[in-house]
């Protein structure tokens, strides 16, 4: 549906120029939900804006539903208003001089050939019903709460039934509670309409919860892309690992490596772990063993093969507690049941599930 190839974009800035995109390639299949995830300034919005036609790329090509909308080499550039897209901004961009109905009706009203008024009315009400705002049709846009504005923005983006829906951090201006609620609503909505979606966010839990495919961007490049579980479970490097959820990092040395399993002696000499690894590492090479908090269990009694540490802090988080443990200079985080009666200073043993660890050359 959406194909992006070799996309580059350089901005002229006060002090020279800045290459925001350094060659972006990706495909989103029909009906797919593709998320660009990355920290601020990595080029997510720029990519999305190139797809929308709001920025003109310096290189590469973009096609939507088989139509080439931008191809720098062939000098093709279809303006935004001729691209078959729906767009939702972080700032909602609800037009303050129109009421809810007029906002949503706008894409139909400017459509050529003209859409009959009765048709417009029906389709707008359908769209409003979709987002649960049908009773707000005559409300002025300035009298809406954040969540309501967000919904109107969706209705407006979807009322044309576009081929492609582009969302730029649509939830980041909302309260935590509302954000979570809207996340489900949004997902529901997209599932119901079956529209192909390109989603931009810097919130990893949004990306993991919603997407078919997550692409982690960094400094103008896609570093890794794949299904959420895959990217979460098999990050290609430390940065990705750390960006997607918290990661505990233990230093160690390779003791032995065979059959896809690498044996690592953790620094401090406490224990060794056998970790699956894709790369072949030479014996004695320093490595980082990375594991996620939920991939270890914490015990208050000695456990075979577990790492002994000191409890530093228990952070109560309602459903669970986070246990922070000190191991020399390293602070490990694990998840424990809130009823666990540990107190700061207690000894504790962390048992890692080696098969869920990830190994990187240090």
């Amino acid at each position, binding site marked *: 549906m959406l194909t992006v190839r070799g996309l580059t974009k350089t901005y002229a800035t006060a002090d020279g120029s800045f290459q925001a995109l350094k060659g972006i390639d990706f495909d989103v299949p029909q009906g797919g939900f593709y998320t660009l995830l990355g920290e601020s300034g990595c080029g997510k*919005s720029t990519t999305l804006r190139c797809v*929308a036609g709001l920025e003109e790329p310096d290189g590469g090509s973009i096609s939507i539903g088989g139509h080439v909308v931008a191809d720098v080499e062939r000098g093709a550039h279809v303006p935004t208003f001729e691209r078959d897209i729906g767009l939702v901004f972080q*700032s909602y961009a609800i037009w303050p*001089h129109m009421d809810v109905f007029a906002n949503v009706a*706008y*894409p139909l009203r400017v459509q050529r050939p003209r859409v009959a008024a009765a048709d417009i009315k029906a389709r707008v009400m359908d769209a409003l019903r979709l987002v649960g705002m049908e009773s707000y049709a005559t409300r002025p846009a300035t009298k809406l709460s954040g969540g309501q504005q967000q919904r109107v923005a969706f209705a407006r983006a979807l009322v044309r039934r576009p081929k492609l829906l582009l969302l730029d951090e649509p939830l980041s201006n909302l309260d935590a509670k509302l954000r979570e609620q809207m996340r489900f609503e949004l997902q529901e909505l997209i599932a119901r309409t079956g529209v192909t979606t390109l989603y931009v966010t810097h919130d990893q839990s949004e990306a993991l919860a919603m997407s078919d495919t997550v692409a982690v961007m960094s400094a103008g490049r896609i570093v890794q892309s794949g299904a959420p579980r895959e990217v979460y479970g098999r990050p290609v490097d430390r940065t990705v690992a750390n960006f997607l959820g918290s990661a505990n990092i233990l230093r160690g040395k390779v003791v032995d490596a065979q059959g896809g399993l690498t044996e690592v002696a953790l620094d401090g000499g406490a224990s060794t772990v056998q970790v699956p690894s894709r790369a072949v590492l030479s014996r004695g090479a320093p490595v980082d063993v990375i594991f996620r908090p939920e991939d270890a269990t914490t015990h208050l009694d000695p456990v075979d093969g577990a790492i002994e540490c000191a409890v530093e802090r228990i952070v109560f988080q309602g459903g669970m507690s986070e246990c922070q443990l000190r191991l020399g200079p390293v602070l490990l985080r694990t998840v424990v049941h809130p009823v666990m009666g540990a107190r700061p200073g207690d000894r504790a043993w962390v048992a890692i599930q080696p098969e869920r660890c990830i190994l990187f050359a240090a």
Partner: protein
Amino acid sequence: MAVQADQAPVVDVARRKRRRGQLGLAGSIVVAGAAAAAIYLVMAPLLALLATAFRGPSDLLPFEPGAHWTFGNLIDVYVNTSLVSSVLPNTAIFVAGSVTVTFLTAFTLAWLVERTDLPWRTTLFTAILFPLLVPGVVMAFAWTLLFAPNAGWINVALRGVLGLGSPGPINIFSMPGLILCQGIASVPFVFLLLGAAMRTMNPALEEASSASGARPLTTFLRVTLPVLRPGVLAPLILATLVALEQFEMPLIIGFPARINVFSTRIYFELNPEDELPAYGKAAAVALLFLVAAVVLLAIYNNLIKRADRFVTVTGKGYRPTRYPLGRWRVPALLFVGFYLAVGAILPAVVLVWTSFSGGSNESLNLDAYRALFADRRFWPAVGNTFLVAGLSAGLITLVGALLAWQILRLRFPGRALLDVVSFMSIGIPSVIAGFAVMVLHLTIPIGLYGTVWILILAYSYRLAVSTRLSRASLMQIHAELEEASAASGGRWLDTVRRVVLPLLAPSLMASFVLLFIVGFREFTIPMVLQSEDNWVLSVIMWKLQADRQTAQAAAVGTLILLFVTPVIFVLRRQLLSRQGDS
């Protein structure tokens, strides 16, 4: 006037009003002083004016022995004269026409500079403000030289090209001529206001339209314009008030075409040429102006309120995207160039050339400057001009800023009234302000009449400029910045001195510079209040002109330009730096 990126809605800031108890004694005195000054500077002249309208006979000062209460002035002005039959219709055509010209030009210019990738934007921004510096009399004189039907340079050139006979083809002494001249002269002011409105608009609103499938023109008509509406209509109303007030153009260009408008009518009542000024009648005419102004201001205030609500909070997604002009680049530059040529370059050239030649083609010389420097009135006038423009600008800026602060941040009875009073000042034409101050100080002689101090007082009624600018930037300054000072143990004066004023500095500077320019070229008020001891440059220029010393008058004009041009660069820096803050 950039909107700060943090998501504090404006309402929230406005809602958080500090209690007066936090002010302490010193604070209360300062704040009350500012309020009193505002009332004195604005209300006193207004009341004097009202009284004058109902005192007669007209040629007596309102409280001179022999004067009494009467409706005679009103009857004379509104019942028996051509006011209704000719002045009002003429004024309507003139104002409507010139505001349209101003507006179309200023809007296009502001849009080109703020929203497109027009080359050399920063330089052009400065250049567009240039006509702000040129006194209206000079503009009118220059345009007469350029467009007079027989000998106007442009007409001569056109006749040469088109092979036509004299006179024509353009006759500046006509309603269209007058409209065009006034229209162009008012552009910079409106340009400034519109530019600010466009700068604060969230481009995502337009992008959303584009992404909805709307073509650029549709987007412009259905989204850009309506969203800008409060920011557009407010300058429109201000431009209307300015056009109503201006009388240099109608006097110099409109008079030969025998076009009488409101402002010239007041001027003639005050300068009847053969008799004493008809104070009462002038005040009676002015009353109508005030009513019109109050109505317009009420509308304006409404729009501004809505504009505050309209301020689109810009999230992280904000980026000032600019329309690529593409092949429209050259026409756009030509348009800007044409405006600059007519509004800035040609008048300046004519002015400078006249000052060196006296207007004849014989030889260029420094005679006019020599004569001017030898004129005993000249040097004191230079000093007075700087003194009056500087002090009044400083006074207005300070009082206005304090006033804006207390209106926004304090809760006290009469706040709304104070707001209206400070704002009313925009609706007072300077002829009236000068006249009212004169009446006031003739009625209560406290020894200021005839001194430069009375000029400073009279100039200082323009509080609205400062309150508006300070208010706009105070709204951007989160009240928490001030509260953080109190919570750090800072007293009110600490807070004002170390936090509020430094944060307001850019807009205070902009306000000061704008007012300084206005004060520097102010002509009406010092004309009304002139005496031996308070001549300023603009009055000298007028007198030299009236005494047929054209070259010397042009030399004064040239010097005024020279004195204020550096100031415009300061202004630009202030305005643009505030844009860059976001």
